[in-house]
């Protein structure tokens, strides 16, 4: 590195400071979100992959659709997969609500009634000695669907 004076040295350093500053900021935000908003440590740019069993792939979503004379758990279909992955990785109200809205759209598209959508996100946990497996909830939402638009006279 050519150094004409201290100022040149400082200006040259910023070229290396900027990328690592971006890394530190993003990773720090990820740590905060993981600890306060149940973001999976494997995602978000915090380099927490391979540190915990709580990966996005191992989280489970339970989606229950309810209407008069109906209450059932529905499967995550291909059209819901992207929203479901995001909701599982980061089960905050915004992501859960997005999934819920897509569930409502899909159910009504197939002519099935839906008043509420309840979504639960569960993470795996293992006993430290026996590895006995269980699940713990990390996010939940009950979404009340707007009434379908009335058509005709």
């Amino acid at each position: 590195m050519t150094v004409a004076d201290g100022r040149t040295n400082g200006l040259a350093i910023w070229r290396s400071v900027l990328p690592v500053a971006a890394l530190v900021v993003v990773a720090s935000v990820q740590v905060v979100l993981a600890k306060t908003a149940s973001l999976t440590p494997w995602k978000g740019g915090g380099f927490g992959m391979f540190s915990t069993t709580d990966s996005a792939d191992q989280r489970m979503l339970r989606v229950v659709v309810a209407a008069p004379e109906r209450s059932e758990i529905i499967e995550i279909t291909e059209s819901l997969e992207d929203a479901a992955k995001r909701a599982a990785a980061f089960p905050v109200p915004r992501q859960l609500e997005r999934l819920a809205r897509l569930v409502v759209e899909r159910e009504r598209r197939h002519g099935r009634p839906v008043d509420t959508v309840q979504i639960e996100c569960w993470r795996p946990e293992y006993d430290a000695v026996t590895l006995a497996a269980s699940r713990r909830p990390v996010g939940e939402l009950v979404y009340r669907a707007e009434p379908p638009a009335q058509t005709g006279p």
Partner: protein
Amino acid sequence: MRSRLLKPARDGPRLPDAVLLLTAICLLLRPLDVWWVTGLVLLGAGLAVLYPAVRHAPPTWGVLAILVALRIAAVWPLSDNHIYLLSYWCLAIALALGASDPPSALSRSSRWLLGAAFAFAVLWKAVLSPDYLDGRFFRVTMLTDPRFADAVMLVGGLTADDISADRTMLEPLPEGAVLADPPAVHESSRFRAMAVATTWGALLLEALVAVLCLMPESRRVEVPRHAAILAFCITTYALAPVAGFGWLIAVMGLAQCRTEQRLLRASYTAVFFLVLLYSEVPWTGVLHDLVS
């Protein structure tokens, strides 16, 4: 002072072509699965491979950094961590190309980026994770992830039936239910030792890389730092299914080499292709078949 943000420095040393070419190859090998980003990234990376003027131009890497960042934003929070590092790395290249001494600038960026990334990885494993230090993570992962099955049979001494039975027992019951008397997971003493060794080996090696990259640059630190980075790539990506990360770390290590360090530069290039081989050849399965 004339800005060097858009033009490469004309005088003085140039960034090694190998670093720029291998970074472009990283972008070509793992398309970013958002259609409007993928096309542009493949175009930019392809042109960088073909034309020296393109790959030595700061805007090329600045645009690639932005495109990768846009992909991260588009699929947030689903991007793997090495995609974030790829964006930072492209930015580092763009900025270094405009420096008066690009190789020194990029070498420094590489050390700091790797040091910071590994420091956060160590923070997660050693402090923030509730199930890493006691070995739970690797005990569970090695039994449940089919990609580790061959290595577990080869080194851990478990049979395919053991692994299959354990995988069933490790499936969590739905909605917080817990068995009153859960069956014991079968773990041999060899498997336990394998899990402990992997747990602490990974942590200590990552800590070593972080420390050596973040220490002030000196000739005394240089050789151990390169040894740690190479050892990490050779051991970790033999099993961890994240080849993109391994390639990127190998390229970043290459950027820390001086021109006269031919053996070291060849080693990083070899490791880049070794990680590629790891991802394509089921070597643990081949070894297991040979041994049994």
